């Protein structure tokens, strides 16, 4: 796929319209992972809109979004940045061999109390 195809696919899959963004920055202001991301929610929105997706695919930021939906809830324009981040992350992990999380990695950190919920959710977010 060329750059425009990837852009269109990411936007289509997100179900959102980044053109509605008025660049107020509220999404990044409210993001609990802001300090852990080098690409912040508002940057995801305009970079995807511009088709500048390669840097986002290579960025750790796609694995730092908590899907807490604070940005979705608080966006005054209904842009829903978390859905754009999710779409970019799927673009990355759906590629062959691109799973971010392995069962071995979970086994290494799991303790007696770790709820199944943590494991199933992490696999849904970090692997295909």
């Amino acid at each position, binding site marked *: 796929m060329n750059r425009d195809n990837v852009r269109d696919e990411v936007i*289509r*899959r*997100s*179900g959102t319209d980044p053109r509605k963004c008025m660049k107020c920055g509220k999404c990044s202001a409210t993001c*609990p*992972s802001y300090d*852990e991301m080098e690409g912040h929610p508002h940057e995801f929105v305009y970079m995807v809109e511009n088709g500048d997706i390669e840097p986002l695919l290579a960025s750790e930021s796609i*694995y*730092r979004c*908590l*899907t*807490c*939906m*604070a940005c*979705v*809830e608080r966006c005054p324009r209904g842009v*829903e940045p*978390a*859905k754009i981040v*999710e*779409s970019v992350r*799927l673009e990355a992990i759906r590629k062959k061999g691109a799973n*971010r*999380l392995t069962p071995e*990695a*979970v086994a290494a*950190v799991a303790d007696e*109390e*770790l*709820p*199944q*919920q*943590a*494991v*199933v*959710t*992490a696999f*849904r*977010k*970090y692997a295909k």
Partner: protein
Amino acid sequence: MYVSYFPGCTLKTKAVRLDRCARKSAEILGIELQELDSWQCCGGAFTSAADEVATKLSSVRALAEAERLGRPLVSVCSACYNVLKQTDHAFKTDPEFASKVRRYLAPDECYNGGTEVLHLLELLRDKVGFENIAKKVVNPLKGVKIAAYYGCMLLRPSDVLGLDDPENPSVMEELIRALGGEAVGWSQRNECCGGYVLLESPELAKKRSLEISSDAAAAGADMIVTACPLCRYNLDKAGSGLPTVYFTELLAKALGAEVDEI
């Protein structure tokens, strides 16, 4: 009152008290939680991507079974509730998604969008009534200062869930007061504990949870109450020392259920 019940994977294992205290309390309140015969794990998170179908089928199957039984589908776990309700909403509002889903289902599994998804907190507030619960309290939580922690999954996205005001929720505080406890005011109650990021960046989960737990402690709380096993795990591990309990544990205790045996 008969309702269909979706316990979820974690309530059968690591969060057994969340489940059993809900069942005991429901019994006392005259609610029959009838566990679905063939529920499967909701997956823990709703994937917003429009082209993701297979991961949502377990939720659709649960919705379909509840529809055949003609009863609301109740969950106690915040994550199950969130996933079931968002899947139901996607089914009702996205004809392309609904059409793809139908191709995966057996003929007797068809879903027509007729199931009401409820969190137990909603059922208690809207169908039982906190004033009626207050009348059945035998062990009031007198003098206990409790920080109601909502996190993300009970509240957002609010246009789909509609459980409470996403910025100023009150359902858990109302329950705490009905049980005779004192609900403290604090600012981090609808912020994220870090959730699944625990398995990607334990430091980030710890940072988030410590911030939340410390805020509750600074507000003078004796304990934090939650509906989510993962929130509880993260908050317990964060190390501010404030205990975290499930809302069903408080409910069962106040209603006089023999919770120590659970």
